[in-house]
């Protein structure tokens, strides 16, 4: 078995650091959760190169193309970065490989323990991340096959979202404003502004900032109607930041089709259920963090 020597093409700690810095920023920018997993052999005394290589090649065979495996400079830790994955997925991954390792005879000598760190903000320093996990795995109190968790970075920052309501009817406008002000979406803070016509909305220049922007508007509006605003917004360079809900009292298939083709995210025919609207909005935001 030991006559074949693998030269493992595995990344080293110092190489990974640079990538990590980029991912860390996209955690915020693109709302992508990263989860880091660190593994260590449970019985450190038995450490030998053979086992080490075996673990490396085993891990390499199990990760996805979007995951990154690397070796820590101390030689007895492995790290894996799961991009676009939460701790749930990482845990599932660990359970799966642990089960395989335990079951198969050829892996008899291997015993591992692991720690998981979910990263949802950019206050993470690579060095610190490593140290915290090493510390977590260093003690003897953990059992073999245990999975520890570092909770320090899982709190996502609260994101500021602009909300613009464009509706002509003053009473209903007030209702919408109150409703949206009352919505509580975890990790998002809504800043609600109301406009009675399309022109004043465009004049406000509010839509030009880089913030995420939820727009709730009628299709027919005095001075610049909804469809034109839609067109303007969807032709801006960073149009992805707009979530556009269009309300309409015209119960016509053609009008709805036109609106969707023009780029609305939701087309709601009046009268509609406010609770449902709330739920839709919440769901829309929940989807942003994956």
């Amino acid at each position, binding site marked *: 078995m030991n006559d074949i020597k693998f030269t493992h093409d595995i990344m080293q700690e110092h190489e990974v650091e640079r990538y990590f810095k980029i991912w860390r920023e996209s955690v915020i920018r693109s709302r992508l959760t990263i989860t880091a997993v660190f593994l260590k052999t449970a019985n450190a005394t038995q450490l030998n190169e053979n086992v080490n290589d075996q673990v490396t090649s085993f891990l390499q065979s199990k990760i996805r193309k979007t995951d990154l495996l690397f070796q820590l400079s101390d030689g007895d830790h492995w790290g894996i970065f799961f991009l676009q994955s939460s701790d749930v997925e990482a845990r599932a991954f660990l359970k799966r490989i642990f089960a395989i390792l335990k079951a198969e005879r050829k892996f008899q000598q291997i015993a591992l323990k692991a720690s998981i760190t979910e990263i949802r903000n950019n206050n993470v320093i690579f060095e610190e991340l490593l140290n915290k996990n090493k510390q977590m795995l260093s003690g003897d109190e953990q059992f073999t096959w245990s999975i520890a968790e570092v909770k320090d970075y899982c709190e996502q920052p609260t994101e500021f979202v602009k909300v613009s309501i464009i509706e002509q009817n003053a009473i*209903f406008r007030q*209702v919408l404003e*109150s409703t949206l002000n009352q919505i509580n979406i975890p990790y998002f803070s809504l800043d609600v502004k109301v406009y009675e016509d399309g022109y004043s909305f465009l004049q406000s220049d509010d839509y030009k900032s880089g913030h995420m922007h939820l727009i709730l508007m009628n299709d027919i509006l005095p001075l610049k109607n909804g469809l034109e605003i839609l067109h303007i917004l969807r032709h801006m360079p960073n149009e992805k930041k707009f979530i556009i809900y269009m*309300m309409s009292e015209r119960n016509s298939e053609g009008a709805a089709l036109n609106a969707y083709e023009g780029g609305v995210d939701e087309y709601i025919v009046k*009268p509609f259920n406010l609770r449902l609207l709330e739920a839709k909005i919440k769901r829309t935001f929940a989807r942003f963090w994956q």
Partner: protein
Amino acid sequence: MIKLTVSTLLAIIFFLLVVLFIFLMYLLVQRQRESYFEKVRDRYLQNYSQFWYDYLFNNALFSIVLVPRGSAQVEAIEKIFSSYLKNIRNEQVELKIKQFSNQYLKAFYEKDLSSKRWSIRMNALYRIADLQIDELLTKCQEFEKNNITDEEHFQLLKIYSLFQPDLFMEKIKNSNVNYAESEYRRLFILLDDNVFIRFFHDFNSLSAKMQFAVIDTAAVKRNMEYLDELKKLLHHDTPEINIRALKGLYEIGIIDEMDPFVPFVTSEMWEARLMVAKIFKHVPLTYTYSYLEQLLQDENWWVRSQAAKTIVEDRHGIAKLQQFIESSNDQYAIEMAQEIAARKEGK
């Protein structure tokens, strides 16, 4: 004599000017009153809109200050309610509005119903239906015995359809007023399915316009029960009914069998052929192509155009059309096929 006429004329002019002057004064006073009325209304709106929102949506306690005093405040409340009902669907809110209206607005509308002015009576009838003031139902039935206009009668029917569907069914079948199709639709759309389906049971006793409205409403309600009823109507003796039923079935868009439709490919009426060409959109092209090819060579421009459009919607449609263009010798059909194919490819 001429002399007399000049002075008569002068008198007439003077008289008319006086009349107009009085009218002007009346108008100015009226304006003043109106602006006062608006002020009261707007003040109520400003002060209590938020109360209303809290009461209706956030289960805040009802406050006695919301009860209207005078017609200006009633109008303000009407404004608030109609803004809600028009934009928001929420059973709890509707119920609260209904309860409030029955308790506090009923008297106002009851008085308006006995007004001499037609427009005031009409407005009252509108509100009774919108705000669901069902306690005025008996009053409405009494009102019906007066000498009322067709418009008022229509509004009454609407009220019955909301509060007492059985009474409505009875009234509408015995009604001797002929309303427009769109008006019948407005009446039918609000009915529950188990009431509405009764129209199909004695379909032939209905007036033509009601029959059409029943078919169109059934198509919009999209209930599977109506599918079979509409299919039955394909065998009706009146061609117009056949066409309407075809249109209804097309709009529902669920075609589970071909047999009922095939005879219409060779129908005498081009409208029926057009509708069949449309209906085939909902059926895979392999089943319909032979019929569509036939329709593509139809004498009617609309039928040809629709047949080509239906073919092109299928994934293999363009290929089929190209094949047709090469093999056919019907110049009109080829032209249509070419145009539609070109447009599809252009997109």
